[in-house]
């Protein structure tokens, strides 16, 4: 009686599952879509919110302009002092040069201090530091823990905000990564299975055959057990387990294919070199520098020695030639350069978000492959061990 009841219950459960399966799948699909699209939106929205917040906190240009003014004042002061020297004793070359060296040295130390403590980047650079795209990249670099450090908060409030922002943002980004990485891995595996089906045909068939054989053997075993009267209870659950197992086998069939590590590595290398080409075009870096930047960024090391949008100061020679033409042409240059920098910031952000998800995917796939290989290895070892005895 007990057995019957349990059997019916199982039956009921199964029936329910079958009738609601369609609805269930739909709901699951919606949940799936929501959770993934949602997490992308969430991360992007969080980053944009962070960008506005940091603009609000740090964006006050007073500080940067003050630094620039100070350096400019020091520059003209040095020039004045040199003029004084010219007036007084401009006749002994060695002595004059020594004097000028002293002034230059003091000027140099002033500049260095400005660069180090106030991240002074030249007189034309103050506009891009906490622009929208600049702070967007900053927020992204915080939550991805890349931390370029080209733009850093200077005020106490900014630092505090950064800490709180990171505490919330990093788990969020981790969620994004694991979610998107999972989806990418699944879809990539599906594509891989579909594309390489012909190549894998033999292997797969062999595996299926082995599974079938095992199942057959299991059935035999169970029959035997039933005959010997050992198996009285749990029969239903057995049956269910078997059927469900086989159904999930077909469900998991495409997911069962492991993508070889070499392919994952190729994808990663391809993505990095693609990024290198892109950045070398946009930022006029060399190809190698571009790939170095991509690697350092995607591995979240983030030295910050190459940062997109720095090309204007970066090429010191162009400024050097342009200096004598005067500062009057500044604003026009600045706006065009500004748009370029904005664009490259946005591009870099997109590249990073996609790239990190892709890397997560590759790690996911590689992990599966490695686990699979280790498993077969242990299987083999165990089999050998058993044969010996």
């Amino acid at each position, binding site marked *: 009686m007990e057995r019957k009841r349990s059997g019916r219950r199982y039956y009921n459960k199964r029936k329910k599952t079958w009738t609601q399966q369609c609805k269930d799948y739909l709901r699951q699909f919606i949940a799936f879509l929501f959770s993934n699209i949602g997490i992308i939106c969430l991360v992007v929205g969080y980053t944009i919110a962070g960008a506005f917040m940091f603009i609000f906190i740090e964006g006050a240009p007073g500080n940067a302009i003050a630094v620039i003014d100070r350096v400019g004042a020091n520059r003209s002061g040095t020039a004045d002092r040199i003029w004084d020297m010219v007036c007084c004793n401009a006749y002994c070359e060695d002595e004059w*040069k020594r004097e*000028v060296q002293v002034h230059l040295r003091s000027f140099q130390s002033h*500049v260095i201090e400005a660069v180090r403590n106030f991240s*002074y980047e*030249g007189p034309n650079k103050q506009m891009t530091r906490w622009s929208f795209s600049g702070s967007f990249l900053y927020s992204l670099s915080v939550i991805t823990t890349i931390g370029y450090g080209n733009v850093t908060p200077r005020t106490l409030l900014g630092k505090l905000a950064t800490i709180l922002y990171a505490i919330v943002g990093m788990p969020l980004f*981790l969620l994004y990564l694991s979610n998107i990485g999972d989806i990418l*891995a699944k879809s990539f595996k599906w594509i891989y299975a579909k594309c390489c089906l012909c190549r894998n045909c033999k292997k797969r068939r062999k595996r299926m055959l082995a599974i079938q054989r095992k199942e057959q053997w299991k059935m035999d075993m169970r029959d035997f057990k039933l005959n010997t009267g050992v198996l009285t209870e749990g029969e239903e659950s057995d049956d269910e387990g078997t059927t469900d197992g086989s159904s999930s086998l077909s469900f998991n069939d495409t997911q069962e294919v492991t993508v070889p590590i070499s392919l994952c590595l190729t994808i990663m290398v391809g993505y990095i070199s693609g990024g290198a080409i892109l950045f070398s075009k946009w930022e006029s870096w060399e190809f190698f520098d571009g790939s170095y930047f991509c690697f350092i960024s995607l591995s979240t090391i983030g030295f910050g020695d190459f940062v997109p949008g*720095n090309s204007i100061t970066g090429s010191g020679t162009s400024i050097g030639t342009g200096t004598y033409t005067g500062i009057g042409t500044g604003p026009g240059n600045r706006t065009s350069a500004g748009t370029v920098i904005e664009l490259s910031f946005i591009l870099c952000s997109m590249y990073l978000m996609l790239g990190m998800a892709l890397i997560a995917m590759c790690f996911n796939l590689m992990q599966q492959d490695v686990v699979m290989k280790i498993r077969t290895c242990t299987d083999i070892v*165990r089999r050998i061990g058993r044969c010996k005895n």
Partner: protein
Amino acid sequence: MLMDVDFDDDTPNRCTTLVYYAWKIFTCLFLHVLLVTMVVLYCLLGAFAFERLESANEIEVKNSIRVMRMNVTTDLWKYTKNSLVLQQDNFTTNVTARLQKFEDDLIYAIKRKGWDGEEDTKIQQWTFTGALFYSIIVITTIGYGHIAPKTLNGKIATIFYAIVGIPLMLLCLSNIGDIMAHSFRFLYWKVCCYTCTRRQRRVQSLRRSRSQRSTTRSHGGSRTTSLKRTGRISQRSADSALGMSDCYTRSSYSDTECRYYDKMEREYAMFGGGMPVKAPNRYSQQSRYSDTVPLRRHSPAIKPRSTSQNSGHRNNANHYYHGRYRVQDPSYSDGDQLDGPELQQVPSILFNKYALDREESRRIHPKQGHEIRRNIRGHSAAPNLATETPSGTLRTNGRSKTPQHLVVDMLPMDHPDQDYYPKPKFRSRHRNSNQSRSREEFLGGSGCGGGGGGKGKRLEVMAPSPRIMSPLGFAVNRQYPRRSTRYSDYYDDTEPCEFDDNNPDHIKPVPIWLCVLLVVSYIIMGAFLFKSWENWEFPDSAYFCFITLTTIGFGDFVPAQRVMNKGDDTKLRIWFCSLYLLFGIALLAMSFNLVQEEVISNVKTVARHLGIIKDEDEEESE
């Protein structure tokens, strides 16, 4: 035939046990000693390599600054000489322009050529210590960027160094974090909660002896520590074993499951306490879902995949159970555990105690409803337990005081738990080894006896949940709830350690606030230290510690940068900072390890309450 199976079963066991121990020793050695040594050696190697590659370039850059300044001087001298009439406005404008160019060159040298602002070639960034610091910064992915390779060779070397070093470091850190988590958990529960656990234990033993005489629910509920269990303690021996097995299958959600078992236990107590009319229904209901998460039990539709997995477990357990069970019979012909209940026809209340015997008596008295119910429960609720306990019996001859609950329970009725109960809390080591060994035996046995059971397991293994590098720079070392227990010991050595901590009866979750407090106090401590060492403001140094430990690494504050002139002091500071950040990241890994399951389950519960996640799709929410 039964003897035959037994023979087949036994021989690989010995072999695999041997292999297993060899592997265990090897991994222990490899992971805990070799790994750290490797990381240290790798850092030293990197230090040598980067020093060789970069220091020449640095000296060159430093010399180039002097040349640059000389050029400015010469230019100015020439200008002064060549201009026939010296007007102040004209002169200063031109000199300012020249100075501006000089300034740009300086900035370029700082930003791009990695000049540190010093001209003295004796004070270098790329000394051995500096390069060592750089290597650590690279492989922990902090990346301050205060020194970065500037030569092509240096950049290439950095890329390859990072490719090898980052995984190595991750491995090492997660390993160290694991060890630290274990020792911390142990410390916390042994030292901090010693008094409360001892009191608990006394209460337990008292209650146990009482509950053997009569089963009442009245004194259930006094032991509501982290587990919120309210049930008769005498049942806990069996039930905790069930819970343990459940944790094998789905180790991450033990909290909720505890609550569930709690419920089960209570009903069980009622049942044992003379309400057999009610109990059968409930049992048959609960046993059906007993290896699903409790919340899932109420959901009308169960996701097909999870259903298959659960039933896969059940299936597996059944298969194995029967396989082992038959094996067990002949091997112990003295068979106390067989004959005892069989002959004595122990009343049903006492049968509660003999959890394993239910198998025997089920066969012998299949009509006894009570026993059947127990069987159902045993089958479905304890898939892995079923695999373990009999094998444990097999090895230990069934009556040694092994930590397996059921084995102990199975002993004849002279209050068998009393041997066991005085030490229920800190048996983890012993039990761990036992479990893994018994699992090991299962591995050997399943090939012959329960080969069919392997299939369900294998399918579950197909989709290991995706773990990636966390932003904190170490691998999120989650236990995969559905990983096959058959293989886990072979390639994942952290797992057996994880298991014993996840027993609901012995899950000793270190509270989240404690871990947070630990990290915060570490940061504050570091802030004070750096404040005194570097003369930073307190908020600045706290900010520095945070940015460093989260591996963001802006590089706006870097230790030992402003005071390069002080030789030895700098070196000491760099060493100290390296130690601080390595230990800090390990500490973060540890606290992450400690709280992650709890946090995830909490978040999930909240999400479920809010309706963001439905009960079924747990995978999506991870």
